C-alpha cells in the first residue's frame, strides 16, 4: 500500500472498491438485519410503511383531486410513484449522512469510504423489490392490466438506485464539511415529494405543470408510473433531465469521493 497526498487514480480506485465487495455485502446484510431486529413485525415494516403511505394518498387524493376520469388507473399511478419514492427518500437521506454516521468505523481502519454510501442504497432494496411485487399484486384490484410495459420497472429501479447513489455520494461528501446538510436533505426530500408528480399528474397543476419536467426525479418516477399505469402525458423532457442529472451526480460524487476519501476522517 502506498499513500500520497495526491488522490488515487480512477481505475485503481474503482478496483479497490470492487475488492471490498465482500465487506460491503456483509455490511449491507447487517445493516438490513439490525434495522428491523428489535421490531416484532421485523422486516415486514420495510414493506408496510410505504404501502400504508401509498394507500392513504390514494384514499385521500382520489376524492380531493377528481382524478376518476383519467384514462389510466389513478390508484396504480399513485402506488407506483409512492413506492418508488419511498425507496429513494430513505436511501438518499440515510446515505447522505453515511460518512459522518460511520465515524466509529472509519476512524480506525481503512476501507473505501464510499462503501458506506453504497450500503444504505443496497440495504433498502429489499423494500423496493417487495413493494414492486405488491404493486403487481394490487394491479387487478385497481383495474390495471398486465402489459409488456411492466418490464420497464427493471430499468426504472436501476435508474432510481443510480440516482439515489449519486445523490448520496454528493451529499455525504458535503456533509463531512458542512453538517447542516443532514437537515437540508431532510427538508429537501420533504418538499421534493410535493414537487414531483407522485400523488397527482403534472397536468393537474395546469400552468406550472410543465415545469415539473425540470425536477430530476420526475423522469424516474414517470418511468415507474408509465410501466405500471400506462401513458398519461408527455415525458420526454423529464427523462432527459433525469438522465443528465443522474450522470452529473454520479460523476461529481465519485470525483469528490476519489479526491477526498482519505481526508474525510480528519474532520469527523
Amino acid at each position: 500500500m502506498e499513500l500520497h497526498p495526491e488522490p488515487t487514480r480512477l481505475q485503481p480506485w474503482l478496483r479497490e472498491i470492487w475488492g471490498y465487495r465482500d465487506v460491503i455485502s456483509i455490511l449491507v446484510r447487517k445493516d438490513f438485519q439490525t434495522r428491523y431486529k428489535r421490531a416484532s413485525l421485523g422486516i415486514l415494516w420495510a414493506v408496510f410503511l410505504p404501502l400504508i403511505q401509498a394507500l392513504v394518498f390514494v384514499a385521500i387524493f382520489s376524492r380531493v383531486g377528481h382524478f376518476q376520469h383519467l384514462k389510466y388507473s389513478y390508484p396504480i399511478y399513485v402506488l407506483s410513484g409512492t413506492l418508488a419514492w419511498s425507496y429513494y427518500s430513505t436511501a438518499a437521506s440515510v446515505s447522505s449522512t453515511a460518512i459522518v454516521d460511520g465515524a466509529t468505523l472509519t476512524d480506525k481502519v481503512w476501507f473505501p469510504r464510499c462503501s458506506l454510501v453504497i450500503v444504505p442504497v443496497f440495504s433498502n432494496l429489499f423494500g423496493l423489490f417487495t413493494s414492486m411485487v405488491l404493486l403487481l399484486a394490487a394491479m387487478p384490484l385497481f383495474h390495471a392490466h398486465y402489459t409488456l410495459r411492466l418490464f420497464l420497472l427493471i430499468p426504472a429501479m436501476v435508474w432510481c438506485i443510480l440516482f439515489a447513489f449519486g445523490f448520496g455520494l454528493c451529499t455525504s461528501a458535503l456533509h463531512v464539511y458542512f453538517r447542516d446538510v443532514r437537515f437540508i436533505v431532510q427538508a429537501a426530500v420533504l418538499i421534493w415529494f410535493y414537487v414531483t408528480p407522485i400523488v397527482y399528474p403534472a397536468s393537474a397543476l395546469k400552468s406550472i405543470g410543465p415545469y415539473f419536467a425540470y425536477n430530476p426525479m420526475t423522469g424516474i418516477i414517470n418511468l415507474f408510473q408509465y410501466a405500471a399505469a400506462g401513458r398519461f402525458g408527455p415525458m420526454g423532457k423529464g427523462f432527459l433531465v433525469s438522465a443528465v442529472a443522474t450522470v452529473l451526480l454520479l460523476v461529481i460524487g465519485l470525483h469528490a469521493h476519489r479526491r477526498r476519501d482519505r481526508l474525510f476522517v480528519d474532520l469527523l
Partner: protein
Amino acid sequence: MTEYAVEVNHVSKRYMQLQDTAMLLKSIMPFNRPKRDIFMAVKDVNFTVEPGETVGILGRNGAGKSTLMRMVAGVSAPTEGMIRVRGRIAPLLSVGVGFHREMSGRENIYVNGMLLGLSQEEVAERFDAIVDFSEVGDFIETPVKFYSTGMFMRLGFAVAVHVSPQILLLDEVLAVGDVAFQLKCFDRMRELQNRGTTVVMVSHSMHAIRLLCPRVLLFRKGVLEFDGDAEAAISAHHHFLNLDSAEDHFGHTGMPAIVAGRTVQRNGVDTSAAEHDDEVEVTWTIRFDIPVQSPQAVFRVLAEDGTLAYSMHTRFGTEWRDFAAGDTAEFRVKFQPRFGGGGTFRLLLDVTDTKGHVVIGTDTHGPNLYVPPRMGTAGLGDALAEVFIADRIMSDHPELTMIDARTAPVSEPQT
C-alpha cells in the same frame, strides 16, 4: 535493496482548524472569511521499519504520534510526502476499534476481521480463538454498545492479533484491561514478535516500551526528535517533558506563592533521570506575592499512574522566619529515588502556611524524573531484597547502565 515493512518518507500533515461549525457557508462568502488556523501535526518525518522489527513511539499528547499512526494505517492521507506499507496491516488505534455499536460482538468480529483483510471463512476458523482470547464469553451475541470499555478493547485487541497481520499498529491499547489481561497481551505481543510480525506501538507506559521495543522513536511537536535505543529515548523523552512543562506552566498557579524556577540535579549536574543510589537534589525557587510567616512544605512523588510513591512534610507548626511580599525562597529537597520497578516519577511541591492547613502555592507541573528499574524488581518501593536459594544468592542481577539525558543525541530547543 531492502524491502522495508514501513517506509515514511518526508511526511507532513497539515490540519486546518476552523473556529465554528458554519465554516463552509462562511468560507464561500466573498467577505468576512473565517480565519483558518493552520496546524502542522507532523512535520517532515522520515523513518523506515524493517520487517520483524518492533518500534515504540514516545511523545507527549499532541506530539503527532496518533496522526502519524493514522497515516501509516492508511486512514488519513499525508499532506506531503509518501508512506509505503508492505503486508497486511492491522491497526488498533486508540480506545474502540472499528466496531459498529448496534451490531453484536459476533457480527463485529466478522466485519472487523474482513476489514482487516481476512475472508469470511478465515474469520470463521479463528472465531473461537478470538472469543476465547477476548474473555467476553456469553456477551458475544450482545450489541457492543452494551459492552464495558474493557470488553470493547479486549475484543478489539483479540481480533487484531488474530488476523495474523504482518504489521501491527497499536496506539495506547496495552493499558486496557486488568493486570491478567495485560499480561496476556504482552505474551501475545511477544509471540507475534517471535513470529516475525512488525510492530509499531505508541505507549505512554515506559514499562511497556522498555519491555517490548528495542528501538524507539521520540516525537515532539510533530518532529521526530530521536530514533534509537529505548533507554536513551526514554531519557530524552523526560528531558523534553521537563523542558516543555517549564515552558507551559511556569508561574501560572494563581496562588500567592508561585514557582519562579526549578532545577533537578544529580551530582551537581542538571538531569531528568537518576538511579536508585544517586543523590538527587530538586530545587524550587518560590516567589511570595503576599507576606508569609514561617512557610512549610510538602514534597510528593507520584508514580506514572498517579499513585503516591512517596511524600514527606516539613515540621508543621514551627515558627522560624517571616517573608515579605516579593521575597523569594529556595526550597531544596535532597533524596534518593529508591523506587523498585522504576518508571517516570513526578516531583511535586506544596508550599503551605505554618500549620500545614492552607496550601499557598503548589507546583502542579513538577519536574519528571525517570528512574530505571532495578533488575528483577517491581513495585513502588525498593526493599533491597536479596533472595537465597539453598544458601546461594540468586538475586544478584548484573547492573543496568543508564544513559544520561544529556548524552542522548537530541537537539537542544531554542529558547
